[in-house]
């Protein structure tokens, strides 16, 4: 697994450029670190390996932060790949609850209840 790629610097700008097709993330979809992604289809032969990996790992909900960690890509690069999969309807995004100024009291109660059971 590692041998063939040993000379490929994982973090090189060239690698990121190739993987994301040179895009740095559009404003079309707002993706957060904790936007949950769930696959809607199985990987197809010939897919880009990183996108196929996302479809495999998102059989259960997974945050983009986790996707970025497992793929060892910067968050923004992982978000570009996810945005393409969303546009192709291959994955579904469950948008996080974004606290605007202050979070919803009901949400806070649910968090407190969950934490108290830890």
């Amino acid at each position, binding site marked *: 697994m590692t041998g063939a790629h040993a000379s490929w610097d994982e973090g090189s700008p060239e690698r990121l450029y190739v993987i994301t097709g040179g895009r740095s993330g559009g404003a079309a979809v707002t993706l957060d670190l904790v936007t949950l992604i769930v696959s809607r289809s199985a990987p197809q032969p010939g897919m880009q390996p990183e996108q196929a990996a996302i479809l495999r790992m998102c059989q259960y909900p997974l945050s983009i932060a986790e996707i970025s960690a497992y793929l060892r890509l*910067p968050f923004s690069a992982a978000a570009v790949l996810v945005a393409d999969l969303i546009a192709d309807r291959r994955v579904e995004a469950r948008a*996080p609850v974004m606290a605007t100024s202050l979070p919803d009291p009901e949400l806070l109660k649910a968090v407190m209840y969950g934490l108290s059971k830890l």
Partner: protein
Amino acid sequence: MGFPSSEAPAEPRAQDALAPSVNTAVKIVIVGGFGVGKTTMVGAVSEIRPLTTEETMTQAGVGVDDLAGVEQKTATTVAMDFGRISLSDQLVLYLFGTPGQERFWFLWDGLFQGALGAVVLIDTRRLAASFDVLGQLEERGVPFIVAINAFPDSPAHPVSQLRTALDLPESVPIVNCDARSRASSRDVLLSLMRYLFTLTTTPVPEPL
């Protein structure tokens, strides 16, 4: 880049799968000076082995000599250790800790955007290391509480002294904790939630 190449698995383990019904994710950021125990706290309460995500920030160079129109930029990699707690079959909490240099975290807007709040972890042996962080959070309007991580050789200060030293208003809770302990770290998160709850239920004074 700073990803640990030896440790992180390439895909989640089967036991790390979230319930398919989970549809709501919230996040809390744990900030504090170097070596204060942020990653320890994340690890103490996380149901997954903490993972690392990162982002490369580009800043225009300041005070750089003109090199015939070549734009000088500095790239800084900001890394975040994070963990996860499933709170119910619908709700999941992510905790982000910050191992790098604190002055760079705030370049990463997406980290604090939408966060429920923050925990400022403090080592009383190095109080001054927290001033910048507290100032940044106040400036951004991120609600936070302060948690004092008890190190064996930490001098014990009364909370009132710490409040004065940190220039914190009465309303901001200061709690003691042991970041290595799951129960203690959970209690810190609960304190933050209770504080946020009081903020949502306290009527905002009418402008005069």
